[in-house]
């Protein structure tokens, strides 16, 4: 097993407020890493540091290192566009573009310079199949994406992420707005995706973290309280705070 992303002593400040305190974490290839913790603990802030989404916020200051294949992504030489292509992101609420299903998926590749229709057709089908959506939308590729159900829209967003052929997929509570059936489909999908991608997922759903992840990282007040295999965290956590949180004693 090799490491895809290595985070070392990461501090993050919003102005004077320190949201992350010396966070260090190895993210392994082809594994699902779940980030759990109560609201405001820093897990969403942390996941956004992995593809520099926090750059969009002016007051953010970051120290420490995030090494992606050994290169510090916060190095001034680092290519953010390329980084976000390699490290894609799926958000809490499905956010399809107001375009057709096809165009939603083709959008990323087009921006990155692909214009050959045949190539795009192949890529769109491959991405939609990868997101377990192809069979449901293959006859309505030219219809507006906003007409899909919530669960389908979220899988479309996953397809859109896959279309630019990333290595890592970051997911920030990807099922919190979905019904149980759609949630189950996304969870099955994550199980499939990890064969080809590295997944990092923020979730508030303890059972979901238990079901789908290989490694679980518990954040508390901007610190990593405990990291371990998901089996260990859910069976015999070492920290009493972890135990209390996953058992629902606070949260």
């Amino acid at each position, binding site marked *: 097993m090799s490491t895809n992303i290595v985070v070392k002593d990461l501090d993050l400040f919003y102005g004077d407020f320190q949201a992350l305190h010396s966070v260090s974490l190895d993210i392994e290839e082809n594994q699902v890493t779940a980030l759990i913790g109560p609201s405001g603990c820093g897990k969403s802030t942390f996941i956004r540091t992995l593809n520099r989404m926090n750059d969009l916020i002016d007051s953010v200051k970051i120290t420490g290192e995030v090494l992606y294949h050994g290169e510090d992504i916060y190095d001034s030489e680092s290519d953010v566009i390329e980084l976000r292509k390699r490290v894609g992101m799926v958000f809490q609420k499905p956010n399809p573009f107001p375009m057709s299903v096809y165009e939603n998926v083709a959008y990323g590749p087009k921006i990155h310079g692909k214009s050959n229709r045949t190539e795009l057709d192949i890529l769109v089908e491959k991405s939609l199949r990868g997101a377990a959506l192809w069979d449901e939308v293959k006859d309505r590729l030219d219809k507006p994406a906003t007409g899909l159900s919530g669960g389908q829209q979220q899988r479309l967003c996953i397809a859109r992420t896959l279309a630019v052929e990333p290595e890592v997929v970051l997911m920030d509570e990807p099922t919190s707005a979905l019904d149980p059936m759609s949630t189950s489909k996304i969870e099955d999908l994550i199980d499939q995706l990890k064969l080809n991608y590295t997944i990092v997922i923020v979730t508030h759903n*303890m*059972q979901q973290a*238990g079901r789908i992840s290989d490694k679980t990282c518990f954040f508390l007040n901007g610190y990593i309280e405990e990291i371990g295999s998901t089996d260990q965290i*859910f*069976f*015999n*956590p070492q920290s009493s705070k972890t*135990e209390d949180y*996953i*058992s*629902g*004693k*606070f*949260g």
Partner: protein
Amino acid sequence: MSLRQHFEEDIANLNKNILKMGLLVEEAIENALIAFKNKDFNLAEKVIAQDKNINQMENDLCDQSVLILAKEQPVASDLRHILAGIKIISQLERMGDHAVHICKRTINIGTDKYIKSTLVNFPKMEELGRHMLVDSLNAFVEGDVDLAREVSARDQEIDDIYDKVEYKLLEKIQKENEKIEQGVELLFISRFLERFGDHVTNICEWVIFSKEGTHENL
């Protein structure tokens, strides 16, 4: 309503019922030995008949535990506690069976006068085992691993008496060549009493699993 109040109530209720089941087993083994000592065959029959209540409790508590698992989806020590509870109730059910077996052997022996040594040693084994049972269940409910370890250590005393009784019974059967049938029945009874203590030790091991998440061979 505070966080987890419903879950805490479920667990308290489950613990209470496990203690109740333990009480039935405690009564069963105590009465089995009273029936043995006094050759009270009516009491022996009663213990045999009442075993169905213990068996029923095993099923009920298993269902109760499964419902908590399904509805509350506990993790970590909460999950281990319920799993340990499920394992403990099956130990209790087996212990109830031992009380039944003792009663059946007592009836088999009938009015034939007992080989002397057993009248002292069997009640002693029973008393030790019964107290161990009560303490082990308290250890489970209180999550007291020190008590669990201390209780399981007491099993050695039962084993020592068992070895002594077994030797004496075999000696009696072999050398004096008398009361062979009764001797065999008594050997079985001593074995059931010895096994009773082993089941308590198993309960203690599950107490440690519940609290510490490790399997300790006591």
